[in-house]
């Protein structure tokens, strides 16, 4: 029952209600950046959609848009004007083209929705007139010292609470940090774990998008929780999540391509986008580089064995992540042995007993 209609080329299109989209987004405290990141378009595109420059968009994008707005598709469709599109219908998803007739760029479009007509039942806007119109009984009551004192105490309490809220309260997101834990080295072809811990000083739940860009020579193997999307060159992992407590852990396994040259260094980058924060992205700090090495990633000092401290470190860092298969069995086997050696021919570790 949506207003989808196949266009030339067989792509289902829908008309969206830009004003409604803006209203939903603002009501939910979502930024254009957040919505744009979820949908996979630019903020300019979102701005144009909201300003109804391109009301006819791909149904696929409309579905993503509804998901980003935590709404149903029906909520964002323009039911009133299903066929009154004047712009070129199949150009809506791409960033602004120079050929677009409107010369003014998007930022000049007012951010606020169009000024509404005065509401018929709007409250009177003449507070100065109120005291004059107050009945004499109220004046009599107000003149009583007890009432005045009570009102003053209430006012002070209100002011105090407001100040307290102003200084200690927040709008859901406090100081957000994201820290990556990554081994210093790994053997090409052998999976290693990466953990990104996001912490928030506020206790209210909030939504975020975590994007992790792997080095070009790196292959993602597993995600906990599962990453939402993955591009190929370079691999980009994306998680869209909601943090209910003070911290959340995102982890994944990856491996360097088997033909990676030893001693080469590979860099990881990442960022967190909050749903109602105007900052572009909070970079993921912590370890960001990994060297290709014949030593196992758990053998942090590269001495050809996994000692007690290295084993305990592995378990403290990665052991608590349910379902992350980082090769406990091999690590314990090496720990219980006299050491190990990388065999480049078989691409396995020889355990020394």
């Amino acid at each position: 029952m949506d207003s989808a209609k196949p266009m030339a080329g067989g792509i289902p299109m829908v008309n969206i209600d830009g004003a409604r989209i803006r209203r939903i987004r603002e009501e939910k405290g979502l930024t254009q950046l957040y919505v744009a990141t979820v949908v996979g378009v630019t903020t300019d595109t979102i701005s144009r959609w909201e300003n109804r420059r391109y009301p006819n968009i791909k149904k696929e994008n409309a579905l993503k848009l509804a998901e980003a707005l935590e709404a149903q598709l029906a909520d964002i469709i323009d039911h009133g004007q299903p066929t009154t599109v004047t712009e070129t219908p199949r150009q809506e998803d791409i960033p602004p083209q120079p050929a677009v007739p409107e010369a003014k760029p998007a930022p000049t479009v007012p951010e606020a929705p169009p000024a509404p007509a005065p509401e018929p039942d709007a409250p009177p806007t003449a507070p100065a007139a109120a005291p004059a119109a107050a009945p004499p009984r109220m004046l009599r009551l107000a003149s009583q010292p007890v009432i005045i004192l009570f009102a003053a105490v209430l006012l002070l309490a209100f002011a105090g609470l407001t100040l307290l809220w102003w200084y200690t309260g927040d709008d859901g997101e406090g100081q957000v940090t994201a820290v990556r834990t990554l081994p210093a080295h790994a053997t090409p072809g052998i999976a290693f774990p990466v953990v990104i811990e996001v912490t928030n000083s506020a206790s209210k739940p909030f939504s975020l998008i975590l994007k992790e860009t792997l080095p070009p020579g790196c292959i993602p193997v597993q995600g906990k929780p599962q990453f939402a999307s993955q591009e190929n060159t370079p691999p980009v992992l994306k998680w869209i999540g909601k943090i209910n407590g003070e911290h959340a852990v995102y982890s994944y396994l990856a491996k360097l391509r088997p033909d990676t040259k030893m001693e080469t260094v590979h860099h990881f980058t990442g960022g967190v986008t909050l749903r109602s924060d105007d900052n572009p992205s909070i970079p993921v700090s912590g370890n960001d580089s990994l060297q290709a090495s014949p030593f196992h990633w758990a053998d942090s000092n590269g001495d050809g064995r996994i000692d007690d401290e290295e084993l305990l470190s592995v378990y403290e860092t990665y052991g608590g992540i349910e379902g992350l298969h980082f090769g406990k069995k091999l690590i314990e086997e090496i720990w219980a042995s006299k050491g190990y050696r990388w065999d480049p021919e078989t691409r396995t570790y020889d355990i020394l007993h």
Partner: protein
Amino acid sequence: MTAKKIHAGAPGLLFLALLLLLSVPAPLRAGEALVSGQYLSGTGQDIQMRITVANPAPTTLIVIQNLPTGTMIDAASPAFNQYDADKGEVKWLLTQVAPGSYTLSLHLSRPVASGQISGEIRYKDPANGRLTNLPVKP
């Protein structure tokens, strides 16, 4: 009169504040061990060590039992992960540790005298990630 009242109430308020401070539950006090170990049996053929883990518990423990070199082990509970007979060193790896008590037992092929054995518990302190070596004597 008013001043008198204020002075009379001040010690009471102080006492109340002190009472509130004292009634706040304190975290693990300094010096209180997260993990402790003791021998239930440290001589003869049966060696038993009890390990007690407090809250917050380290997730993983390595327990080491040193025996006289060349000692043969007939049985172990739970099964150990490493035994170097040349060094007489037995190692257990305990993972997903929860607060509580754990008993490790060995049945040896021949009895050992008191003072011939010793133990050690290794773990990472969850508060600071530091490696802790806790010696255990019979």
